[in-house]
């Protein structure tokens, strides 16, 4: 049996049934944004920790940046 072509009236009816919820889309978008930003925050915290460790070791004399 051939697949019936979708009529415009069917499309209108489908659109009316599945009207997008604005609030849900906004919160979904914000949630995705916060999720992606959390990766950046993890990168920032990691970099800060490494920098503080570097300067702590430099001040304690454990490492040096001088070429002897």
């Amino acid at each position, binding site marked *: 049996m051939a697949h019936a072509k979708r009529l415009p009236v069917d499309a209108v009816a489908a659109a009316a049934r599945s009207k997008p919820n604005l609030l849900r889309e906004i919160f979904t978008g914000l949630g*995705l944004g916060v999720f992606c930003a959390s990766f950046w925050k993890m990168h920032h915290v990691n970099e800060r920790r490494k*920098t503080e460790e570097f300067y702590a070791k430099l001040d304690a004399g454990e490492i040096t940046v001088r070429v002897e």
Partner: protein
Amino acid sequence: MILKNIWLFPIAYCDAAEPWQLGFQDAATPMMQGIIEHQALTPILHHDIYIFLIIILIFVLWMLVRALWHFHYKRNPIPERIVHGTTIEIIWTIFPSIILMFIAIPSFALLYSMDKVVDPTITIKAIGHQWYWNYNSSDEQSLTFDSYMIPEDDLELGQLRLLEVDNRVVIPARTHLRMIITSADVLHSWAVPSLGVKCDAVPGRLNQTSIFIKREGVYYGQCSEICGTNHAFMRAPEYIGRLLSLLWLSRTFSNRANLGASYPKSYRSNIMARAVGKSWGSMGLPSLGLPSKAEDMVRITSLKRRARLKLDRTS
């Protein structure tokens, strides 16, 4: 100047421009650390703003894609006839203002902290010319020299193209410095990205900036204000020597006769002795029980203060 690795590998600092570089050069001053990331008691800027940027970017992209998806002409043949929505318009006006307020607070804190000049040990004047810098330090002894970029044909192996100069500025690390920038002809700008410094050189005006460098190294900068045909070939590299850099000290203290009106001999001789590697204990000063670099800082500050008091009493 090795590319900084992330995650598991140790850091090798990048203090000069790198090919295909995307991010900042590595910070060497608290000011630049405040601009990029976080240092204790210093507000962050770039990393802070980036969080808001990512959230807004993902949110806007999501809304765009979903709008295209939901209102595709085949899925939604009759277009919506929305004219206005007062509530949502109020929300999308107030919400960005709140975001801007969260961005502005650390930004202003950093901006005002940049203007503070903490009792500097030395003052260096950088005078912009077409197309070189002249450096002048007249604290202990008048020292002035020109700094020209090394042409490509004269570079030695390992030197950086268009960044090296014949005379570098040698300044001590872990010391508060004051830079005074001016120009002798047209506008220039003295900029060193690793130090977070960019100061315009305006003829007839003295601009001041303060630097505190946390680690030794060689830092490169480029003129940042169009100043003529060789604007791209004016350089400002600095060599941040040891806390007691022999080169700096030898240039500063070489002529003792001229220092009669300056710090007493005992101060100079203590600093010179430490510079050649003698310990404070061998000079009759008891150990403070601090790490060596911290002890150096405390000793130099204390000696300088005592020398200044002695000078005031005798003058």
